[in-house]
């Protein structure tokens, strides 16, 4: 399979179609510009969500109450989670999809370019609503509470006891859902309909495959989340009894609906990571991916299984024994396809001519640390053991290992890998090394000790803790501030790239194989690429 149109692109290397000024960004129909908007937006949300996390860690640095009151602390844990999940990680992956999927499959743009821009521009408005509630809580008259029920917004905390801001939160979740569904539909349609001639499904890069499957998950579960928050809204204001046992409903019903969305959501945040890492490792190991087809099937299996494991979040809530056993075994089954992936990456690296440029460093760190997070997940899947771990810092450690040193690390890997293509300059190596090592060390200082305090019984979502946890929590907080500051290095790296300051990037800076279409176009990628589809042999 070879792209025969490399020389062809020079004709298209012009910018006469590119609109200028504010209009270019506000009214865009260009997948690259919209991708850039998504990526900057998600990075801004990453910093805001990080700031909220640092409020949490500042409070927990020492035992006792020092920085904020417990009510505000609860708002911090809630909005930190929501901003990171819906504002940072998901839009970052949509940004990567926007930039890379058309380039990878030889398409001129996303299939529905105007809808693409709509799905982006909904997000800043949705997060204005969510974040304004925090600002009002911090600085507003009478300090009206922001959402304070945890990012899972369990009933009755969010119904009977939810603050007034819950209603606006519900509407902002609806907006995020609309945005995600439109973005996902766009990805599915682009992949099915706009592949270059000869780009069969089983020739698609794995990043495209994993995103296609992710998009299915999004279209399937975001509407369920919309249903859940709608029931919340009517329970709060229109007298319905979905989550009230007095009327014949059940608060546990909320958890079932939420996690029917929530567990696929977890994979929505990790499957594109698998695609990124599967794109990067073969390039820097200079070998083909060990098992392409098995990676595709493993991804699809994980996605299917994600629909039948949701109640493992609810073992301590109680359900019939058969249900408990079913969800336990199904959950453990997921480690099989996940293992297929991890072994695949290892086998790809085995006896490769490996070099360790920045994207590869992040990718290897991803493989190791994500596996750590996966293994603690396997521990949590075992029902009787989960009774001990549930709602402790062990859970916090688990999902931060998969989301921060998993998803976020893969996004960083992707950024360092593709920044030359996006900006035309190589990311600054010295700052990049500093960013990587600083993040790697701090992320482990931040999250590894959480396993210990969790196993020892420290509950999550409390503003204070017993004295025996003090030493660990001090170092966790040091790790948190260190990790937070480290990400500012990346801000500098990204700004330097955006200002085109740095070594000029060739079209294929990483010596990627020629079937990776994104490297056949010049760096930076011209405003329009593949107006005429390349022919894949």
């Amino acid at each position, binding site marked *: 399979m070879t792209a025969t149109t490399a020389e062809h692109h020079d004709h298209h290397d012009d910018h006469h179609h590119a609109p200028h000024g504010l209009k270019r960004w506000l*009214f865009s*129909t260009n997948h690259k510009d919209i991708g850039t908007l998504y990526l900057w937006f998600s990075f801004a949300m990453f910093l805001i969500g990080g700031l909220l996390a640092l409020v949490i860690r500042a409070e927990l640095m020492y035992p006792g109450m020092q920085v904020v009151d417990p009510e505000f602390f609860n708002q911090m844990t809630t909005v930190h989670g929501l901003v990171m999940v819906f504002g940072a990680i998901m839009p970052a992956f949509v940004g990567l999809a926007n930039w890379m999927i058309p380039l990878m499959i030889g398409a001129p743009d996303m299939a529905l370019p105007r809808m693409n821009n709509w799905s982006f521009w909904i997000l800043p408005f949705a997060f204005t609503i969510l974040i304004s509630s925090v600002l009002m809580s911090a600085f507003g008259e009478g300090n009206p509470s922001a959402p304070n029920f945890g990012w899972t917004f369990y009933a009755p905390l969010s119904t*009977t006891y939810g603050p007034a801001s819950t209603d606006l939160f519900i509407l902002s979740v609806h907006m995020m859902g*609309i945005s995600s569904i439109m973005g996902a539909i766009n990805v599915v349609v682009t992949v099915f309909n706009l592949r270059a001639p000869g780009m069969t499904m089983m020739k698609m890069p794995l990043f495209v495959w994993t995103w296609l499957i992710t998009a299915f998950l999004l279209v399937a579960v975001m509407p369920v989340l919309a249903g859940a928050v709608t029931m919340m809204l009517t329970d709060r*204001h229109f*007298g319905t009894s979905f989550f009230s046992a007095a009327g014949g*409903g*059940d608060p546990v019903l909320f958890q*079932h609906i939420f996690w*029917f969305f929530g567990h696929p959501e977890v994979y929505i945040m990790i499957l594109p990571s698998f695609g990124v890492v599967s794109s990067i490792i073969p390039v820097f190991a200079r070998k083909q991916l060990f098992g392409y087809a098995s990676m595709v099937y493993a991804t699809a299996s994980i996605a299917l299984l994600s629909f039948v494991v949701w109640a493992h979040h609810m073992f301590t809530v109680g359900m019939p024994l058969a249900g408990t056993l079913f969800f336990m075994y199904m959950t453990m089954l997921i480690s099989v396809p996940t293992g297929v992936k991890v072994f695949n990456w290892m086998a790809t690296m085995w006896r490769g001519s490996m070099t360790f440029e920045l994207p590869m460093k992040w990718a290897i760190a991803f493989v190791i640390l994500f596996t750590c997070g996966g293994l603690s997940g396997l521990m949590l899947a075992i029902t009787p053991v989960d009774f001990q771990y549930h709602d402790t810092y062990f859970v916090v450690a688990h999902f931060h290992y998969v989301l921060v040193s998993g998803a976020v690390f893969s996004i960083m890997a992707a950024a360092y890998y593709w920044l030359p293509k996006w900006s035309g300059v190589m990311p600054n190596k010295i700052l990049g090394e500093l960013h990587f090592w600083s993040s790697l060390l701090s992320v482990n200082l931040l999250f590894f000790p959480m396993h210990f305090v969790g196993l020892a019984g420290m509950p999550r979502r409390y503003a204070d803790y017993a004295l025996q946890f003090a030493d660990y929590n001090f170092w966790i907080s040091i790790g948190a501030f260190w990790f937070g500051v480290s990400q500012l290095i990346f801000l500098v790296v990204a700004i330097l790239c955006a200002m085109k300051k740095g070594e000029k990037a060739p079209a294929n800076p990483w010596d990627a194989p020629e079937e990776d279409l994104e490297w056949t176009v010049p760096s930076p990628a011209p405003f329009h690429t593949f107006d005429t589809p390349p022919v894949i042999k």
Partner: protein
Amino acid sequence: MAESNNKYYVPDSSPWPLSGSIGLFMIALGAGNFIQQSTDFGQNVLKHQGTGAGYLLLAGALWLIGTLFFWWRDTIKESITGLHEGRLSGSYRQGMIWFIFSEVMFFAAFFGAMFYTRWLIVPWLGGEGSNAMTHELLWPNFQAMWPLTTTPDGRETQAMGAWGLPAINTAILLVSSITLTIAHHALIAGERGKLILFQGITVLLGIFFLFLQVEEYIHAYTEMGLTLNAGIYGSLFFMLTGFHGMHVTMGTIMLLIMFLRILKGHFSKENHFAYEAAAWYWHFVDVVWLFLYVCVYWL
């Protein structure tokens, strides 16, 4: 995959997506504040406040409708100038199919809630399984039954029967699907008179369905004690049929717009995707109704 000489049409920059986001923002802010200010928590009582937020909600809705009008005006122009050939037409089709799938999943959340309630919650509240003490300690007088006409805390209602209005409504929707298909075939066959007649009949049937649905709601509220506040049965009944009704409203508006576009001569034998999309949507609300009729009204 089409021939490479068929360039994929990428539209120029457009203000409507951003404008649509502003509309949604106004709707969210307006609705959030309006609901917050105008209802008493859990009391189902209107407080007649929050008119400012209400106007914002209304303005947002009008803004969004206006935006969509201009957005679709652009798309229709593109379609009439023949830009929707080839693969772009495929993108629209697939996009519509996945949109309908997302709608299916939205209803799935409410259907799932209904089955969970019927099969698990209500029996458990009645003491089934390992829940004898739950029943004994919380609501010893509670009887598990479906439809749940007496809630654990003693609110009473009547169950909506399956015959009468709901059965007539089922017939109306089924017939409307047939008339719509006749209209569609007439469009393909180029029989304009037949097309206009049957498209008009379909729109009228949609409106008639909604009219009867409102009648049924009035009957439920005023005579049966069946309200949103009547416990889980009323909650599920009104949310499922209500969201279905909203979708029928949307579908009827779509079919009405298609009717007007037919009168303006927008569609040809080959190029009438908007019409097909509206038809798919109508069949989707029809199928949802059949599930509703069987699971909510009948069984």
